[in-house]
């Protein structure tokens, strides 16, 4: 009898194990932006980046933002990605990492540099021990070839590039548990990141020009060239199309 019960339960356990744990659980009060955004909200603060500076607005009074600080960051700033108490700021040359332990006074911790690519665009996302950036070298960003790069950020003051994967023309990116979704001029790439520093390409959707993604609960929201494409990512390595909205 016990054996029978075991056999009955085993498939359930297996299925549960295969489903992806969602790293980010969106509550009623937190939203989520894409990796190519210039605006990011973390707690009671709105952080914005323009070409050269980071601005901090206090939004504790939600309808009444107050500019608290303007921090010079560098040149050709493109993107901002908040993760816990850090901000990852992408530019056309490097990724700047700031601490927001003191949310009104972001403090620069380090700069991640890819030794392979001189000049590129850098949308970046981060988990606890790894940061991923796409380094695109076409168009306004110059350079010669494009890659997905994985940085070891265990020592946040000294990020080290650990691995790269060639991608034709990458844009934004996002992750959900063991899946990393990378946007490309020629489709959407799904990488397995169980070994975070050596992403393995597992699937490619070649149905359009993907620009950015937000993994949000069980939905992968994709900005594509003519609107939105939405996938169900209950099984994170196997996105299934929900709909396209133009």
């Amino acid at each position: 009898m016990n054996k029978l019960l075991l056999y009955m339960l085993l498939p359930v356990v297996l299925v549960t194990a295969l489903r992806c744990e969602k790293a980010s659980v969106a509550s009623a009060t937190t939203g989520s932006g894409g990796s190519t955004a210039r605006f990011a909200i973390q707690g009671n603060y709105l952080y914005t980046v323009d070409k050269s500076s980071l601005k901090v607005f206090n939004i504790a009074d939600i309808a009444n933002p107050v500019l608290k600080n303007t921090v010079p960051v560098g040149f050709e700033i493109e993107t901002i990605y908040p993760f816990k108490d850090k901000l990852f700021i992408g530019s056309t040359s490097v990724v700047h990492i700031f601490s927001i332990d003191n949310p009104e006074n972001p403090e620069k911790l380090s700069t991640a540099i890819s030794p392979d690519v001189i000049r590129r665009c850098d949308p970046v996302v981060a988990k606890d021990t790894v940061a991923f950036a796409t380094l695109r070298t076409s168009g306004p960003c110059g350079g010669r070839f494009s890659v997905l790069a994985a940085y070891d950020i265990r020592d946040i003051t000294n990020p080290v590039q650990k691995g790269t994967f060639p991608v034709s023309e990458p844009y934004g990116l996002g992750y959900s548990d063991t899946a990393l979704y990378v946007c490309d001029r020629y489709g959407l790439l799904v990488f397995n990141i169980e070994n975070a520093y050596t992403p393995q390409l597992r699937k490619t959707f070649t149905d359009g020009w993907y620009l950015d993604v937000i993994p949000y609960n069980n939905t992968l929201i994709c900005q594509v060239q003519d609107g939105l494409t939405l996938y169900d990512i209950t099984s994170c390595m196997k996105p299934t199309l929900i709909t396209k909205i133009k």
Partner: protein
Amino acid sequence: MKPKLIATGIGLCFCLYGCFPDRRYADTDTYVPVYMSPADKSNIFLANARTTEKSGKIYAFGNTIFQNDLNKGIHIIDNTNHADPKKIAFLNIPYNTEFAVKGNYIYANNVNDLVVIDIRDLNNPVVVKRIENAFPYINQEYPPQSGYFVCPDPAKGIVVDWELQTVKSPKCHR
């Protein structure tokens, strides 16, 4: 004999003309500055759902998905039914490119101003705060892409976009 020679000469001229087009007179892919018309800058209102023209940045909050339409505003998509999300409205915000959402408030750039839009009543969005000149103007002197462009004229106002067009003899290049 002579007419044949002339005909050959004319033919050769056409060939040379066709084979070696002169950039100064040729149609060239060129970025053309789009200037802001100051009158419509603060014209923020809710419109019917519409087709996306220039797909912009995205944001998710609760059961709502937002997508910018470059320089036009924000599409609002109701995702309450995850199997069948639907566009429900378009929030017209002139020259908007960036935004974030918290609760029922949208933080958005309106050209170089930061505006806060209260969407508690989605049918009646209200600008509850405007911080003027919160952001610097960008791409005023040249387009973000390299190539030929029409030299911008500061007297015509603020450049809010660069459109790729075919232009005869563009003067500027980078």
